[in-house]
């Protein structure tokens, strides 16, 4: 059981002191200067949710344009900007920041038994940079200069010669800007996972959610530089006159594709692995069973990202590579299947051998398994190079990756929203509308995405702004559009349910699901210090260890392990989780938003070509960093 109320007056006094130490400033200023991982997680959540709305609106406009042949709902220019922004938004501005920024930030310290991230101010910085980059790239849409060469933005279509406007400059700078935020988050997570666990939580006692976040963070850390290099080259080609991608001056258009997909394929796993983490949190809670084959699953989560770095060229089978290099990448693509199948069957066996309760979160996970397997099976088909060469760049591919990205990333996000709603708000959601929302979304997405397989095999290429009648595509396209709006209805019901539950829901208590991990040991919503007592951990399912929780209660009564003298957080040795030191954590800083603002000015000046001013703004950034470090923690 969770510690919600102090057992003794002395404990109450100490908790009072913790409260004072960790309390945030009131009002807007409190949110601007916050370093609380929960507040940052919520900021990420609301921002990415808004961006999900934008990306969804773009998708529905695309679907409306394609509902019938030869329509003119939007012009070809607008259509190109819509599908480019849809991809960019969903990948860079919704799924990554939602799974890592929102879920990761809010939950990681709670699952690790920590009071905050390893670098709380850097955490705030990553949010403010993310927000600034989102505003930056969406400005382009409002001034009619949005990126228009697709999310993978192939050159030479994206070069100055064929795309003279600022559209692609927004893309280059927006992506680099955004990847700074993602790199900060990734580094943050890696160090937090290695250093900020509750003492006693050796790596083999770490919940699978944290392994998933670790895998995704390593993926981001090592994949993003390739994208940054690529977009830097393109920016230089467009604005300085270099020739990285210019075949007439010794450059290569394929260099863009190689560098892009060296980032782009690991990216796919970066999108779905945190969602696997959400799934592996929900399954034990609703089957009341430790996940089958825990070590295999943990290794598989890391391995899937690792092998994912070796498969990039399978996006390029149609560019005329030599057969031998294609076969190499096909073999790597085949290997990446194994870690995925391990996880799928570990989940399925947990469902069967546990005591499954199909409440809304578990329904979403079951739906996720169905969608992921469907998308995975079409993914396996791309091991077959000739078939890939036939269907690449058609709607078959569009179907495949939407099953993966919507099915395997967004379904767990929805499931996770329901699952942790009681923890974040202290209220229970309404179960019946929750289940209905699942079924609507499940039917809607399958109606939306399944026909895309067929229409792709019938020859419909992707990214066409319209299509002729008479090729047998019309009925499927109409079905997809209807599916899109059904999905919208389901999502609105989901959000409406959570909105109403926030005000009208019954109180949840600290642990409504008998959840397996440490976040369920503290009150709902968690206090600003997360845990009154640094929890004792002897397994990966800490909340199911009654002896340890009893020990926590005794420690609270005795005032032990409360660290109520300052912003204190134990740090541990990376592997076996022995106590290393009691670290003083920074608290509240105005510098992260200031630095993000200065960086936003740097990127704006680069965009409008005032490189000198950009340099001056760069100096301002350095000064802000110096100001940041003038705040030292007390000795």
């Amino acid at each position, binding site marked *: 059981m969770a510690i919600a109320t102090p057992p003794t007056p002395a404990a109450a006094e100490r908790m009072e002191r913790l409260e004072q130490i960790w309390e945030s400033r009131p009002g807007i200023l409190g949110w601007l200067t916050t370093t609380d991982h929960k507040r940052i997680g919520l900021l990420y959540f609301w921002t990415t949710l808004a961006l999900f709305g934008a990306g969804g609106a773009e998708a529905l406009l695309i679907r409306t344009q394609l509902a019938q042949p030869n329509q003119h709902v939007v012009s070809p220019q607008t259509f190109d900007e819509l599908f480019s922004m849809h991809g960019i938004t969903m990948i860079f501005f919704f799924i990554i920041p939602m799974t890592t920024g929102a879920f990761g930030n809010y939950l990681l310290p709670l699952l690790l038994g920590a009071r905050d991230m*390893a670098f709380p101010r850097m955490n705030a910085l990553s949010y403010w940079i993310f927000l600034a980059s989102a505003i930056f790239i969406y400005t382009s849409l409002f001034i009619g200069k949005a990126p228009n060469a697709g999310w993978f933005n192939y050159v030479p279509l994206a070069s100055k010669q064929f795309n003279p406007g600022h559209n692609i400059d927004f893309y280059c700078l927006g992506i680099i800007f955004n990847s700074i935020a993602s790199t900060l988050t990734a580094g943050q997570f890696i160090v937090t996972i290695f250093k900020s666990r509750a003492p006693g939580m050796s790596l083999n006692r770490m919940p699978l959610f944290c392994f998933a976040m670790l895998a995704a963070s390593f993926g981001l850390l090592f994949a993003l*530089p390739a994208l*940054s290099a690529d977009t830097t080259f393109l920016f230089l080609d467009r604005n300085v006159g270099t020739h990285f991608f210019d075949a007439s001056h010794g450059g290569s258009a394929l260099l863009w594709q190689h560098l892009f997909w060296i980032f782009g394929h690991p990216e796919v796993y970066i999108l779905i692995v945190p969602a696997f983490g959400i799934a592996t949190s929900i399954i034990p809670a609703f089957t009341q069973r430790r996940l089958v084959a825990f070590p295999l699953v943990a290794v598989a989560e890391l391995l899937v990202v690792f092998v994912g770095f070796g498969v990039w060229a399978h996006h390029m089978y149609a560019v005329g590579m030599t057969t031998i290099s294609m076969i190499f990448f096909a073999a790597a693509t085949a290997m990446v299947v194994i870690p995925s199948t391990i996880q799928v069957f570990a989940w399925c066996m947990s469902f069967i051998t546990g005591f499954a309760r199909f409440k809304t979160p578990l329904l979403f996970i079951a739906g996720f398994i169905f969608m992921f397997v469907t998308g995975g099976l079409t993914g396996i088909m791309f091991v077959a190079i000739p078939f890939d060469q036939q269907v690449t760049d058609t709607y078959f591919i569009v179907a495949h990756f939407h099953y993966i990205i919507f099915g395997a990333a967004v379904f767990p996000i929805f499931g996770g929203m329901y699952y942790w709603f009681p923890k974040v708000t202290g209220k229970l959601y309404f179960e019946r509308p929750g289940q209905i929302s699942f079924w609507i979304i499940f039917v809607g997405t399958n109606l939306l995405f399944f026909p895309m397989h067929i229409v792709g095999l019938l020859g419909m290429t992707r990214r066409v702004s319209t299509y002729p009648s008479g090729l047998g595509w019309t009925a499927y396209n109409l079905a997809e559009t209807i599916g899109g709006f059904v999905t919208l209805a389901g999502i609105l019901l989901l959000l409406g349910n959570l909105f109403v539950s926030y005000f009208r829901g019954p109180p949840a208590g600290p642990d409504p699901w008998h959840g397996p991990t440490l976040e369920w040991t503290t009150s709902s919503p968690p206090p600003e210090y997360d845990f009154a007592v640094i929890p004792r951990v002897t397994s990966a399912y800490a909340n199911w260890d009654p002896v340890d929780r009893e020990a926590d209660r005794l420690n609270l009564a005795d005032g032990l392990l409360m660290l109520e003298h300052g912003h204190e957080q134990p740090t541990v040795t990376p592997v076996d989780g022995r106590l290393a030191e009691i670290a003083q954590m920074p608290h509240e800083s105005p510098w992260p938003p200031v630095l993000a603002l200065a960086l936003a000015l740097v990127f704006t000046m680069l965009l409008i070509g005032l490189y000198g001013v950009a340099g001056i703004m760069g100096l301002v950034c350095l000064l802000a960093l110096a100001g940041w470090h003038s705040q030292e923690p007390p000795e």
Partner: protein
Amino acid sequence: MSGYSVPQSQVGRPTAWWGMTILIASEATLFGTFIGTYYYLRFKTPTWPPGGIPEPKLVVPLVMLAVLVSTTVPMRLAATAARTGRLAATRLLIAVALVVQSGYFAYEVHDFSDQLHRFDITRNAYSSIYYTLLGADHAHVLLGVLFNLWLLGKLARGFTRYRIHAVQAIAWYWLAVNVLTIAVIGTLLSARA
């Protein structure tokens, strides 16, 4: 009293060192991508350097490289001195390193603009990657110089645990920058082979 028996000596690396490791991993990957690009372009071009660009000079860059890499020694020693609490020694070692690093940087900036007069960055793909690699490396040296300046400013007001960790992290940064510089210069000089 916390109830924890906190180890007396430093156990493992401080969090600041870990943070710096992340930065280094990210930057090293970026340089890896640049170097990969260099060879990708090279192996699809019959003559290298193409377009009548002269081969890079050998002796001066190697001497300068040796000068820069030699600052690894005072930076490492400074980290050790900081850990054992010798403030004066730490300041002196960092100052020595800073002087050499600044001299290196000043020369390289001069040399960079000098080379730009001989062949422009817009000449062809070789000149593009050549200057990008070199410029990125110099930028990292400049960042290190600024780090050291900032450190000396901080250390003027004595040691704190935070500052000791900063010395360790920045010494680690300089080691990485020196290794990256070896890789970059090695790559650029490989055009002579």
